[in-house]
């Protein structure tokens, strides 16, 4: 997952749990026993992670598919 390209200028979403701003931070994700660390939006207070539609259906989907074929 690309770490820097196309970062939106300012996230539109706020944490609904604590009202905090979302920042890019390291997020651990896993699929079929493969762990990956990526920079994603998350609430730095409570840790809630946001995966955007673009990411889920784009890059993330590609990685899922290629891990499935390994």
């Amino acid at each position, binding site marked *: 997952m690309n770490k820097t390209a196309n970062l939106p200028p300012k996230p*539109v*979403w*706020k*944490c*609904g*749990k604590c009202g905090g701003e*979302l920042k890019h931070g390291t*997020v*651990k*994700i*896993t*699929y*079929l026993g493969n*762990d*990956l660390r990526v920079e994603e939006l*998350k609430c730095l*207070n*409570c*840790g*809630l*992670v*946001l*995966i955007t*539609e673009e990411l*889920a*259906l784009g890059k*993330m*989907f590609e*990685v*899922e*598919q*290629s891990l*499935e*074929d*390994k």
Partner: protein
Amino acid sequence: MVTHRANIYKEVGAAMDQVELRRLESKCSQENPPACTAGCPIHVDVRKLMLAIQNQDWKSAASILQQKQPFPGIISRICDHPCEDVCKRKDVGATVAISNLERFCLENHAPKIATVGAVPPKSQTVAVVGSGLRGLTTAYDLARKGYIVTLFEKSDRLGGNLWKHPEQQLPAQVIANELSVLNRPNVTIESNTVITRQDLSQLKERFDALYIGFAAQSEDALELLGENSTVDPISCTTPIAGVFAGGQLGNNSPINAVADGRRGAVSIDRYLQGASLTASRDREGAFESKLFVNVNKIPSLPAVPMSHESGGYTGEEAVREAGRCLNCQCLECVKACKYLESYGGYPKKYLREIYNNESIVMGTRHANKMINSCTQCGLCAEVCPNDLDMGQVCLASRESMVRRGKMPPSAHDFALRDMAFSNSEQFALTRHQPGFNSSKYVFFPGCQLSGSSPEHVEKVYAYLTEQLAGGVGLMLRCCGAPAHWGGNQGQFQTSFEEMVAEWESLGKPQLIVACSTCHSMFREKLPGVVSLWELIKDMDLPIQGAGANYGKVAVQDPCTTRYEQGIHEAVRHILLRLGCEIEELPYSKELTKCCGFGGLTAFANPGLAQQIVENRIKESTADYVAYCAMCRDRFAAHGKRTLHLLDLIFADDLQNAATRPDSGFSQRHEHRARLKRTLLHKFWQTPQERERGYRTIKIICNEEISKLMEERLILIEDVQQVIEHAEGTGSKFINPDNGNYLAYFRPARVTYWVEYQPQEDGFVVLNAYSHRMEIVEEVKP
């Protein structure tokens, strides 16, 4: 034709091995040469040549000829063209004038005489006696391989019998030119040298090998070889080691003389290299090709006449005549199957890719998606001259992938969960007919009909209980086809055993199935299973009036009925009784085509599944009638007016029925669950149960969002769970500009995201998407 689909690579646990690969590969004839090439004793690539002529690509034409013909200018003028006798055009017009076209190429676009290629010279020496076509070809072939060749000719010029052809057919100048290829450093020509039987032993001393360039048993050969003149026709060996001779009788076929000389050269080369003289020689000389070519639908075309018989073809005539070439291929299955077509090859190639896919230990398995895209419909086996069933191959490969834990989870997960739903509390049900404590029959409507038209299931059940005596039980559940198609034998077996236990609990009544897929899952395993159509074909039909005289309908036979003649006939019999006029689709009955749902193609490769439907609905402009709920819904989803056979019997409004949209995945779940509740209530007087838990959350989506969710395989119940979780825990994001919420939940192996807005007593869905990767993150309380 195949009537029984045997299991390919049976042994449980085994992946396709080399032996199996070879066995399957040998069934696909596509890579065999066309009849002309096989029938040509030196195997000129006629198919390619004809294309080159059509494209007026004279350079390629010449090089195609030079590749196989030792002296193209000579052969093109005198060949006795046995290729033409076997040309497939013969049955649809007249054989292609291959020889005359070759002559045209050489007369009008002669290539430069081939110059000496850079072959590493060899030290071994060969003597060739006689310079007719046999000797010339042997000398030429061996010289090209780098041997040191000496050619003995009793007269003062090379060519032997070649000089007997009239000047007009084969000008002296052409002979001289063409034979100038032998002017090379490793060839010595000894003309005016008569070799007698006495000279042979001396030549044997001087040379490493000898070739006697005369036809077997000819006068010249007998004179030279005496009692040693028996020649093996395959290896051209004589009883004397190192001495080879023409193995074919007679001098009446120039092209066979060339082939004979070539065979001699192959033998001498093998002899001098110490290789076997007999191994794999079955494809030398003319042979019969195994390439299957279907000329049934090819319009007949007469030969292009020559305007000047003696002068040969004009350019324009040659191009037209070459254009009659059928470009012979098999590809029967590829022409019939969108899936096979879409991967750009043919089974022999695919088999290798599937084999490689299975053999990979580390690295990417590129053929996974291909293997999961076949609908397992069996049409390929039906049209293949050798019954190669790629559906069975793909199924076996899927089974092996599942066993080895290599099946991509995204391919079939959704369908398997759908199956689990149908076999859960939510839908599954087994009952005797109300008022009975035994069953003579049991109706098994299947999950797809129940999901698509629950009202038909209700009506059919009521109808059967009225018509049949002895008790008609009811079983609601899935037949297990998704697990079977997905290669998940374990899951299929579990589901099947559960089903059988339920069936036994009813006392093993005769199974009546409404879905041909269920039928195909049970027919070999459960005795007496009967399709609804065969059962009711002669019973009183409760025609609603609307059904009568509907007009013309084209019948879609589900691919799972391919060899079920009884069902095909019953369905047509019912249609006629209903007053319909039947149109047979070009692909019907044992040639029928899948709607794209079979084999779970619609999940593993939705784009291809769509092409499959589009292709199928184009076959006729008539309204279609299907007797599988999936076929019906998929055609309808693509805008084709399609009725279910049950519509014609039970629906009140056929116009509506023909255009009723596809039910969609969420609705199918809801239909099934509701059907169970309704039937329990109506037939067994069970108090209607209310929905509980998250299923009571009211979800509002417009058409666009519903469609998006459908495409993304997201169900209403998934959305309900996300919202229940978000609202219950407060774990959600908010957009301060518009107040929308965004939240996720992972009920099983998929994470669902929903953007939503609360509205009165429910929630409006604004977007939904999913991913399979799991977020591993601690959310601090």
